[in-house]
């Protein structure tokens, strides 16, 4: 009935026999499979729905799109159904995989023009169809152009996985294969400007370059860099020496697609009429021969998987690390289809102008730092030995064995602070803290990686932070960080009580700017809230660090200092109060419990604490205000500093970057303002609580009076 409609496939998983894995992504795996009733080879994409944190609407939309399209150059889904928490999408099997696969395995430098021409023409037909039906593909790239053994070319993967870059837990769940920056049009990358079908045309142009060179134009750069380059640089094109082999009409066609002004790009329909496509050979002729001598797809996939795994394993080798890094960066995905400013700003701090140079330089620094560091720690060992205190500390270390190390440090720091008023000891213990960093690299890592990230802004730090922490790598970071900011860290280690310091310091490394709204609101006002469910006395001490662990947000260090700096805060926190309120029923409304036998004196300290906290929060807001101004200034100065700091090799992006910085700065300012509002709200809330407590206290004391009177009467 349905003209051109497919045969019917059942929604029963038992009718499908999954064979080899032929594709894999962050939350989906594609299998070659057999549909048993027809004994037909098909592909089944298994998407783990539980890893999609957003609601399933996007998945629904994509699944529907895929089942309502029907064009020889577009992969459609035959049917889709739920198997436990997986969505199975049944699709035609494209036996030769994607163009990207093919390039990776056999054509690392790209294809010859006639093959490219056929592939592009088929892809363009698909785009023309999709656009005519109101769809934007949004992820056109070689990785999504699929090939069949007979040479058929189909545009696939309408991101049933699109949800992965849609909201929810963005950072973690984005898919490597979805919406990567290299292919995205400038208007897509710029938040606020709309985009339409023409965005696909840009991606199509980039794909043309990808097929010609074996990789997309900016593929070796980190995403944020790609983003800036896409927006600021002249559009890429076929104009290098190595492109001499390509025809003039090919170059012209690419240039037409890669026009920054979307309105000046041709529609798919128009582009199809371009002379480049006039003489396109049929894909049976030009594409089919490409995979003449290759092993079957699944073996290729396996080989690629092994290769990837091997590369990832060689983390310490700079080049592969860089690659793995960019991979992970992509996974975090600056996917502008759903632009996450927070993410961007974080990434912005990672931008480097020349990765390799940076790498070398960093290694250098690391070495120096490490030497430096070693000396120091040796000296400290001696210092430590002479004090008996060291033993007690050591034993303390053991006694808290189960406490995660990272928390532990803070606790120890605290203990040191409180238990050694003696200035001599103080000095030593301050140092001892440093020593402890040597002994427990992972523990410093969290914090230092964070600092390093915000400070030295190396992508490496970022990775070490998000992935499993490698003691070695992290150590080197902490060390390099140390050298660069040795002065500061010294102060930090030895005078954690200096309250004003963090506020002053924060803007200097543009800390608060990188703090997303959400985190800022919460972490500043309530660093004491347990985020890990620890409920003992360690709680408040461990929290600052927990915030750090949780936070991919560099500035949390600020909070640590704040918490450290104000002992009041520790005890006066909301969280604490709640805990105590549980232990001390008097703070319950008297109506409910009628506990009028509790002296008001128990309540008083709480109230005082609460009051103090309120005033501290007031201080915080004032500080924040001043840091707001400072950060503006700080940022300006940083902009000034940036060019000399970033090696001379930087390709003259800086001038162009200024206007972009202005934009970013504006965004940051508005973000800070939003934080202010948050904080003010919280302050009001605190005041309200305080007032309520006072009310209760009044009620209590009157109860008490009553009770006293009764006692007297009796």
């Amino acid at each position, binding site marked *: *009935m*349905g*003209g*051109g*409609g497919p045969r019917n496939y059942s*929604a*029963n998983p038992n009718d499908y026999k999954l064979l080899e894995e032929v594709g894999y992504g962050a939350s989906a795996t594609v299998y070659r499979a057999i549909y048993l009733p027809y004994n037909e080879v098909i592909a089944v994409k298994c998407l783990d*729905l*539980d890893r999609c*944190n957003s*609601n*399933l*609407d996007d*998945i*629904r939309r994509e*699944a*529907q799109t895929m*089942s*309502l399209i*029907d064009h020889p150059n577009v992969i459609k*889904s035959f*049917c*889709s*159904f*739920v198997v*436990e*928490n997986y*969505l199975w999408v049944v699709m035609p099997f494209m036996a030769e995989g994607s163009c990207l696969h093919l390039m990776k395995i056999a054509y690392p430098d790209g294809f010859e023009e006639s093959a490219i021409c056929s592939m592009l023409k088929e892809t363009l037909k698909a785009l023309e169809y999709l656009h*005519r*039906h109101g769809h934007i593909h949004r992820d056109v790239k070689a990785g999504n152009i699929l090939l069949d053994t007979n040479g058929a070319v189909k545009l696939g993967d309408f991101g049933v996985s699109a949800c992965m870059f849609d909201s929810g*837990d963005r950072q*973690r769940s984005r898919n490597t294969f979805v919406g990567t920056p290299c292919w995205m049009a400038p208007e897509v990358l710029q938040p606020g400007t709309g985009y339409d079908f023409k965005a696909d045309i840009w991606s199509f142009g980039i794909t043309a370059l990808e097929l010609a060179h074996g990789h997309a134009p900016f593929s070796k750069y980190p995403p944020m860099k790609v983003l800036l380059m896409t927006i600021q640089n002249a559009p890429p094109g076929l104009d290098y020496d190595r492109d001499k082999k390509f025809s003039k009409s090919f170059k012209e066609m690419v240039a037409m697609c890669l026009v920054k002004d979307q309105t000046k790009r041709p529609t798919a329909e128009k582009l199809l009429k371009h002379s480049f496509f006039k003489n396109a050979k049929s894909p049976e002729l030009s594409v089919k021969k490409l995979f003449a001598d290759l092993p079957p797809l699944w073996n290729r996939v396996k080989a690629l998987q092994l290769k990837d795994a091997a590369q990832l394993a060689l983390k310490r080798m700079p080049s592969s690390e860089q690659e793995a890094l960019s991979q992970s960066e992509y996974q975090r995905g600056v996917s502008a289809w759903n632009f996450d400013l927070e993410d961007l700003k974080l990434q912005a701090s990672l931008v480097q102008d020349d990765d390799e140079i940076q790498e070398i330089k960093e290694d250098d620094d690391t070495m120096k730092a490490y030497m430096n560091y070693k000396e120091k720690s040796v000296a400290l060992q001696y210092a430590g030995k002479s004090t008996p205190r060291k033993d007690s500390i050591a034993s303390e270390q053991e006694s808290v064995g189960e406490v995660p190390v990272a928390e532990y440090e803070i606790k120890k720091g605290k203990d040191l602070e409180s238990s050694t008023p003696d200035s001599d000891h103080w000095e030593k213990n301050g140092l001892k803290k440093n020593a402890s960093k040597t002994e427990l690299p992972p523990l410093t890592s969290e914090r230092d990686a964070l600092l390093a990230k915000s400070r030295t802004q190396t992508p490496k730090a970022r990775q070490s932070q998000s992935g499993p922490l490698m003691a070695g790598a992290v150590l080197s970071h902490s060390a390099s960080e140390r050298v660069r900011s040795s002065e500061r860290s010294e102060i930090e280690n030895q005078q954690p009580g200096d309250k004003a310091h963090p506020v002053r310091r924060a803007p200097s490394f543009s800390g608060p700017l990188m703090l997303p709204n*959400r*985190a800022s609101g*919460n*972490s500043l006002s*309530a660093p004491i*809230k*347990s*985020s*890990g*469910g620890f409920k003992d006395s360690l709680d408040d001490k461990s929290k600052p660090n927990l915030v750090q662990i*949780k936070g991919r947000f560099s500035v949390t260090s600020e909070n640590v200092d704040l918490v450290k700096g104000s002992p009041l805060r520790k005890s006066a926190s909301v*969280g604490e109060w*709640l805990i105590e309120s*549980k232990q001390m029923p008097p703070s319950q409304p008297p109506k409910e419990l009628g506990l009028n036998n509790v002296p008001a004196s128990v309540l008083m300290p709480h109230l005082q604490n609460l009051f103090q906290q309120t005033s501290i929060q007031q201080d915080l807001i004032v500080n924040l205000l001043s840091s707001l101004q400072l950060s503006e200034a700080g940022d300006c100065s940083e902009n000034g500093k940036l060019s000399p700091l970033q090696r001379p090799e930087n390709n003259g992006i800086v001038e162009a970057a200024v206007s972009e910085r202005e934009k970013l700065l504006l965004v940051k300012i508005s973000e800070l303002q939003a934080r202010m509002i948050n904080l003010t709200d919280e302050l009001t809330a605190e005041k309200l609580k305080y007032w309520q407590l006072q009310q209760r206290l009044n009620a209590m004391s009157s109860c008490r009076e009553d009770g006293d009177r009764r006692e007297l009467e009796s």
Partner: protein
Amino acid sequence: MSFSFFKASRPKTPSELAKTVKDSFNALDSITVAEVKALEKAMEEVEKNIVAMKVMLAGDGEVEPNPDQVAQLTLEVCNEDVIALFIHKLLILGWEARKNLVHCWSIMLKQKVDSTYCCVQYMENHLELLDFLVVCYDNKEIAMHCGGMLRECIKLPSLAKYILESPSFGLFFKFVELPNFDVASDAFSTFKDLLTKHESAVSQYLTNNYSEFFEQYEKLLTSPNYVTRRQSLKLLSEFLLEPPNSLIMKRYIGEVSHLKVMMNLLKDSSKNIQISAFHIFKVFVANPNKPREIKLILAKNHEGLLALLNNLGKGGEDDQFEEEKELIMKEIEKVSRLANLES
């Protein structure tokens, strides 16, 4: 892909087009299935006319549609009863024609002619068409097309209210669990629109049909289908916690059977479901006027609940979640202590 053969002929006026469409649809009836050739020809004619309508309503990509013609055509289509034909004949149309027809439909439905929405009026006078559309979910071929038309309709309060109160609404509980994901999820999305788009109608419906509705809904919440569980749970929090439904919510959170369902969902193997369940479970606990039975259940299970909550949402959840979780855990502790005192 070019419709040039058609542009060439003299463009029809809107009323001519409406008549031609009607005639071509009716022509299909007079042909028996045996007459393959004739049927094909008649079908071609219908599809050609649908494309012509689409061009008139939406333009052809180069020429913008003429608003007067659009209004005129909409009016004629209503007057000639062509709308009913659209809906009844959808199934026999071909792949592209269906899509085009749905496209035309959504344009005409939104079309205001002389200060009235004549298509909407037409539907209001032919409410059985809505029921027909709902039932179409049972047919995989056209389920999504009808679903699309239906969702356009229920943007209007009067039509949504009708479906809510019609017996066919009950069918949705079945449709959302259909094996084909695209159909089931389409039905769910219509179901969701029905329960969230028009608050007062929903609140009235839920008040009048409280027991039947939640009895059915519980089946969704406890469905073996992962997607059904997850989506229905999410949807529940979306309509139940809306202010206009506060009375219904209060009734809901006072009933032990619902608490039990939520507590089971808290133990679901899926992290997403656990988290969503928490967001409803918390309302049971935070209820200042918890009935005795609810308190008892919380007290009896407080150890298990606390352990479960403690592990809930480790990593990745925001601070607000942690905050709420802590409050809820405190409340459970309190309830359990009080219950122990009482007993």
